[in-house]
């Protein structure tokens, strides 16, 4: 099975500080027994045959093959989003199920699926676990229990289906502002997690006629602007501040695929033109996002994703030449053009039977060497959990700027971290 059109970039660009993984987790009010979780996983993987694959290197492209290796569940680790080795990490599987006594988490290599696909798998796994534990979970669109019909559309590469040939779809942006590596980097991903009442966010964003995602993006840009102004003394050296926002385009195009079907829209401000007030930023974000998220504009991006792969010269170039080229393109025209990423899965609806047991959801996105902090947001049970994942060993200025701005606007924020206190004392 070939990789989908947006996944082909991930295997060649994996690096120490760029693992291309994400993690979804559910905290439960019932105890998690690893043996039972393994049984649930075995049942669920049968329902998700397109997830039971391993990654292989062909002459022209990477490809997936069915994986029959034994499954495993792993104890949770202190740092999320570690590298998933295609052969060694999880018996060749591209996802890793982790547990603590009250949590079930799944870490995915992004070549396998995106946040929506990952969420469906996690919800199905937790539902099956609860079923094995004697709970009665009601049916849900995003819960695919073992024994239900596997739809062929779930495994399709929807980019191919919705591809309309277009010419001249490539356009390049200038490089954006990136945080410096002051204090050093670490490949143990550092997390600062903020829990915010969705009602509070709704109240503030509704008062400004924007969505929660638009509001969060504006806060990120505003904070990044302050970081740039604090770190760069000469305004002539300022760079644009852009945020990459993955958009789940299943609803836009009407796809049921559980593989990658996400596009990234990049919104931001050009800080070279002067300081932007928060209202100006919000205005920019709102207009840019709304003009980007529609079927026609997104079709252009679909065309760009697919056209590259269909190009004769690229298609028949050996992988050994394609890999460095993709790495260069990704670094120069991918990560370089935006300052950070925020992926908002949205408010997750949980079916009856699961709702009562799930206390909390978390979503972590791996950062990269260029964009050293990434953000993942997910909502459930009235709370939005906003996780900042960082490879910066000590520097937390960006996270602080974002969260204190929320507090100043009257939104209570509760923070938690996996950063070691001793480590911080060395500063």
């Amino acid at each position, binding site marked *: 099975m070939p990789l989908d059109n947006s996944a082909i970039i991930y295997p060649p660009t994996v690096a120490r500080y760029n693992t291309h993984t994400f993690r979804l987790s559910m905290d439960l009010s019932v105890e998690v027994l690893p043996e039972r979780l393994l049984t649930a996983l075995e049942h669920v993987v049968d329902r998700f045959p397109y997830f039971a694959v391993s990654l292989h290197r062909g002459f022209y492209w990477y490809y997936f093959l069915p994986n029959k290796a034994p499954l495993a569940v792993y104890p949770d680790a202190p740092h999320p989003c570690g590298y998933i080795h295609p052969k060694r990490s999880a018996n060749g599987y591209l996802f890793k199920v982790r547990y603590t006594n*009250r949590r079930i988490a799944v870490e995915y290599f992004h070549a396998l699926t995106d946040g929506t696909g990952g969420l469906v798998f996690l919800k199905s796994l937790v539902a099956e676990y609860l079923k094995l534990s004697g709970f009665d979970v009601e049916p849900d669109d995003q819960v695919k229990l073992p024994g239900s019909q596997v739809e062929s559309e779930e495994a399709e590469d929807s980019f191919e289906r919705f591809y309309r040939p277009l010419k001249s779809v490539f356009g390049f942006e200038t490089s954006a502002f990136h945080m410096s590596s002051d204090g050093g980097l670490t490949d143990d991903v550092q997390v600062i997690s903020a829990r915010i009442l969705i009602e509070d966010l709704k109240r503030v964003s509704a008062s400004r006629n924007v969505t929660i995602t638009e509001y969060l993006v504006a806060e990120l840009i505003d904070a990044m602007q302050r970081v740039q102004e604090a770190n760069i003394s000469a305004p002539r050296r300022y760079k644009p501040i852009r945020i990459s926002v993955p958009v789940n385009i299943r609803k836009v195009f009407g796809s049921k695929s559980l593989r990658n079907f996400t596009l990234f829209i990049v919104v931001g401000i050009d800080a070279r033109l002067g300081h932007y007030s928060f209202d100006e930023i919000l205005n920019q974000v709102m207009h840019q996002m709304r003009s980007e998220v529609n079927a026609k504009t997104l079709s252009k991006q679909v065309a760009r994703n697919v056209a590259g792969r269909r190009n004769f010269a690229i298609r028949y170039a050996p992988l050994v030449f394609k890999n460095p080229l993709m790495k260069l393109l990704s670094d120069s025209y991918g990560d370089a053009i935006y300052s950070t990423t925020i992926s908002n899965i949205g408010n997750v609806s949980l079916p009856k039977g699961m709702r009562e047991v799930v206390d909390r959801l978390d979503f972590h996105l791996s950062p990269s060497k260029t964009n050293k902090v990434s953000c993942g947001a997910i909502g459930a049970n009235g709370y939005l959990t906003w996780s900042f994942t960082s490879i910066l060993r000590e520097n937390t200025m960006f996270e602080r700027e974002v969260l204190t701005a929320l507090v100043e606007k009257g939104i209570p924020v509760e923070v938690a971290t996996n950063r070691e206190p001793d480590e911080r004392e060395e500063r």
Partner: protein
Amino acid sequence: MHMAYCVRCGVKLEPGSTECPLCKTKVIAPDDVVGSPQGAPLFPASGEDGRTVYQRLDKNRKGVIELVIAFMAIATITLVITSFALGASFSPWLPIGLVILGGSYILVAFFVQPIYTRIASWYVPITVVLLAIIDLNDLSLSWSVAAILSVVLYWFVAVVPWIFPKRRLKEAVATSVVAVAAYFPALDAAVSGALDWSLEIALPTYGVVLASLGFLVLRMYKGKPSVTDIVLSLILSACWGVVAGDFFHLRSIDARKLLSWSSSVFIVAVCLLVFLTLNVTLRRVRNYFNNRVV
């Protein structure tokens, strides 16, 4: 629920926090305000134990296991019938033991978590039993004692260091060093029934090699010897070992000569030592005059 706030950032801190994760400001508040950690932490602390649970038996594995057990049963029954048929001229003891142990080797791979230290730790006792059974065919243990000691030494030197966590490297190395030191007298006692060559030759020679290697480790710990330095130092340690072996052997037989066949190796060792000393000294002198920090 008790909960502290950061005085600088204004964010709520999770119960039990000692400082704000955003600005590192210490939490100074009564215990009942700070609270104690509740529920699951954001992530488990490093070093927290947990076990990886593997799918032990899928259909293929189950099939192979059944096949192995079936072969073992058939072979055992065949051997028992053969021994009845042939009477006293054939003892099934040894072949049955070998069949069971051979099967155990295969079964371990299916039941034990596929981690080198675990697999090796299972194979070591099985091999020890196998060697003893083969040797016990004549109802006495002879050559197998030396072989068993070697297998145990392998476990201490090539398995135990990997059982230690990385941060306990010193303990791991010390275990291996002590195991090798204990191996010589144990082997000596097992083979000759007394402590003879081990005390007079093996342990002193081992001590000389350890001292030489210890010197190299010290240099690596204190400074940054070049790769050439390290390689030459290792060759030097081997040379000292050869020379020491010859020297202590001659002492044990009360020979008049200090060295016999290892004289040429001794000359090589001295040359290497002089070269290494000059190399280090000249580099220090050069660095001194170039104002470089060594």
